[in-house]
C-alpha cells in the first residue's frame, strides 16, 4: 500500500466488508436503544407509545437488579479466578514431558467442544444431583450427608460448571505461551541459583502475563453474557440467587413480554460491559504493549 492510488483502491475493496460489519453492529444497537424508549409490551401489540427514560427507571429499581448485578460480577470474577489459576497450573503440567501427553492434551481440551446446555445438564443430573449424582454417591459412600448443590450453593455451582467449560480455553492459550518461553532463559535462571518456585515466579509468570491478559479479556466478553447454564440448571433461582443481568433481561422480555424494559436492560448490560472493559484495560492492558 505504497501509493495514494493503491491506498484508495484498498479502501474501496474493504468498504463492503466494513459497511456490512458496521451495519451488523449498529442496526441492532439502534433498535434496542429505540425500543428502550418505548412502552412496548408483546401482549398489547400496536399500542407502543413514547415513554422517555421510564423503562430505565423500572429496570434499575427492580428489586432483583442489585442482586443480579452482584451475581454477574461474582460469576465473572469467580470463573476468571478458577480458569486463570487452574489453567496456569494445567499448562505447566502439560508442558512437562510424560507418556501419553498427546492424548491427555486432547482430553483436557474436550470440555470446550461440549455445548453449554449439554454440559450444564450433565452437571445438574449426573454430578450435582442430590439423589442420583456422583457427588452425592461419593458423600454417601464416605458416610456424609449429600449436598444439594444447586439448591444450597447455587451461584457457586454455576461458577464451577462455567469454569469447567472455560478451563480448556485458558489452558490452551497459556500452554502455547509457555511453549514459546526460551529454554535458555530457564537454564540461565537455573544457573543463577533460582529453584523451581523462583523460576516460576520470576521467569514463567512474567512471560505468561500477556497471555493471561488475553485470556481474561476474551473470557470476560463471553462470561458477561452467560445464560444457557443458568436457564437449564436453576432458572435464576432459588429466588433470585442466580439471576444475572442477562437472565433478568430474559425475564423481562420473554416471561413478562415487556420488550421496552428488556431493551433498557440490554443497554444497561452494554454500559456495564464497557465499564468492566475500561476497568480491565486500565488494570492489565499495559501487558499488551511490547
Amino acid at each position, binding site marked *: 500500500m505504497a501509493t495514494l492510488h493503491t491506498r484508495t483502491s484498498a479502501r474501496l475493496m474493504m468498504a463492503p466488508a466494513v459497511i456490512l460489519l458496521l451495519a451488523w453492529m449498529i442496526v441492532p444497537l439502534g433498535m434496542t436503544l429505540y425500543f428502550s424508549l418505548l412502552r412496548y409490551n408483546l401482549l398489547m401489540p400496536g399500542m407502543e407509545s413514547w415513554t422517555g427514560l421510564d423503562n430505565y427507571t423500572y429496570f434499575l429499581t427492580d428489586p432483583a437488579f442489585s442482586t443480579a448485578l452482584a451475581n454477574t460480577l461474582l460469576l465473572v470474577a469467580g470463573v476468571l479466578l478458577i480458569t486463570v489459576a487452574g489453567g496456569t497450573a494445567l499448562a505447566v503440567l502439560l508442558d512437562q514431558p510424560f507418556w501419553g501427553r498427546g492424548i491427555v492434551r486432547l482430553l483436557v481440551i474436550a470440555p470446550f467442544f461440549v455445548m453449554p446446555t449439554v454440559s450444564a445438564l450433565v452437571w445438574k443430573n449426573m454430578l450435582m444431583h442430590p439423589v442420583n449424582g456422583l457427588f452425592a454417591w461419593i458423600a454417601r459412600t464416605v458416610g456424609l450427608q449429600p449436598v444439594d448443590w444447586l439448591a444450597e450453593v447455587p451461584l457457586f455451582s454455576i461458577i464451577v460448571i462455567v469454569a469447567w467449560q472455560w478451563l480448556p480455553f485458558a489452558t490452551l492459550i497459556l500452554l502455547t505461551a509457555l511453549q514459546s518461553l*526460551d529454554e*535458555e*532463559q530457564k*537454564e*540461565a*535462571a*537455573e*544457573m*543463577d*541459583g*533460582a529453584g523451581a518456585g*523462583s523460576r516460576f515466579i*520470576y*521467569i514463567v509468570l*512474567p*512471560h505468561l*502475563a500477556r497471555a493471561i491478559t488475553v485470556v481474561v479479556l476474551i473470557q470476560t466478553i463471553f462470561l458477561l453474557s452467560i445464560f444457557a447454564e443458568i436457564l437449564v440448571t436453576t432458572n435464576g433461582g432459588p429466588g433470585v440467587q442466580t439471576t444475572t443481568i442477562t437472565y433478568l433481561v430474559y425475564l423481562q422480555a420473554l416471561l413478562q413480554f415487556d420488550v421496552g424494559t428488556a431493551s433498557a436492560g440490554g443497554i444497561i448490560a452494554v454500559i456495564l460491559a464497557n465499564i468492566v472493559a475500561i476497568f480491565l484495560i486500565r488494570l492489565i492492558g499495559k501487558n499488551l504493549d*511490547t
Partner: protein
Amino acid sequence: MGSILLENVSKAFGEAVIIPSIDLDISDGEFVVFVGPSGCGKSTLLRLIAGLEDVSGGRILIDGSDMTGTPPARRRLAMVFQSYALYPHMSVRGNIAFPLKMAGENREVIERKVTDAARVLNLTDYLDRKPGQLSGGQRQRVAIGRAIVREPGAFLFDEPLSNLDAALRVAMRLEISQLHQHLKRTMIYVTHDQVEAMTMADKIVVLNAGKIEQVGSPLELYRSPHNLFVAGFIGSPKMNFVNGIEAEKLGAATVGVRPEHITLSTSDGLWEGEVGVAEHLGSDTFLHIEVKDVGQLTARVGGEFTVRPGDKLFISPDRDRLHRFNEKGAAF
C-alpha cells in the same frame, strides 16, 4: 578457585553417542577455548560442565571435589548463553541483580555489586532500560554482568559472539580478553571460529565428533598440528594439502603447507601454476593458484603484490615448514 578436571566423561542421548569419552585438565585462571565444527559436541561438553545436562559416564571435579551430580547453581560457575538469555521483563539492573537476589544477599550488597559490575562493563547509563531497548553488544555486556556479580570460580561462554556483527565481534573479543586479565578467573569459551580461539585462548581444545583431537597453546597448534584435522582447522586461510605423487616426492602421504609459507617466483620453483583468483585485502593478498598434478593452492603474499588472473607463477613451499602426514592423517 576454578580448576576443572574431566575424567572419562561421556554423553549419549539415547542411542546417539555425542561424546564417547573425554579427559581434560583445566587449571585455575586459564582461558580455555573449545573449538570445532558444528555438531562436534563442544556445546554439549560445556553444558555437562555447567550441570545443565547429566553425564552418561565419568566424573567432573571442580576444585578437586566431585560435582558430577551437583545441581548447576551449586557448582559456582556462571554461564553466558549464545542468545544472552536475558530476562526480558526485568531492567538491566534487575537482570544483573537476579543471581544475587536468588542467593539471598541484602539490598545494600546487591546495589553495590550491581553498580560495580555496571561500571566495569560501561552499563551505568543503561541500568534502568529493558533488554529490548539495548543493542546486541550491550545485551552481551549485561549477560556478562549477570555472570560476574556472582563471583564464580569459572565462567562458561557458549558461542557468545556469534549473534554480533563482524566489527562488534572484534571489539567484544578484546573486552572479554581484558576482562579475563582483570578478573584472573578460569574461563571456558566455546566457539566454531578458529580466529576467536587463536586470539583469546591460553589453551585450545580442538574437538571433532566428540573426541579431543589436540590440546595446546594457539602457537603449538599452529606450529605442530598432530593430524590433518587440526592442521586444516587452525590457521586462516586454510592450510594447503597436497596428495599423491607430488607428496611422495616430498616423502609423505599428504603434505601440508600453509599459505604464508610459500615462496613465489616468476623464473623458477618447485611447481608451476596459473593464477585463478586474487583477493586483495590491502595488507595481504591471497592468490588461488591452479597447479597441474597438485590441485588448487592458496598463497599469501604482500599487499602490493600485483598479479593478474592467468599469469604464470612458480611456487616453492618452505622446506623446513612443511607438515608431513602419514596415510592415517597423523603428523610425523
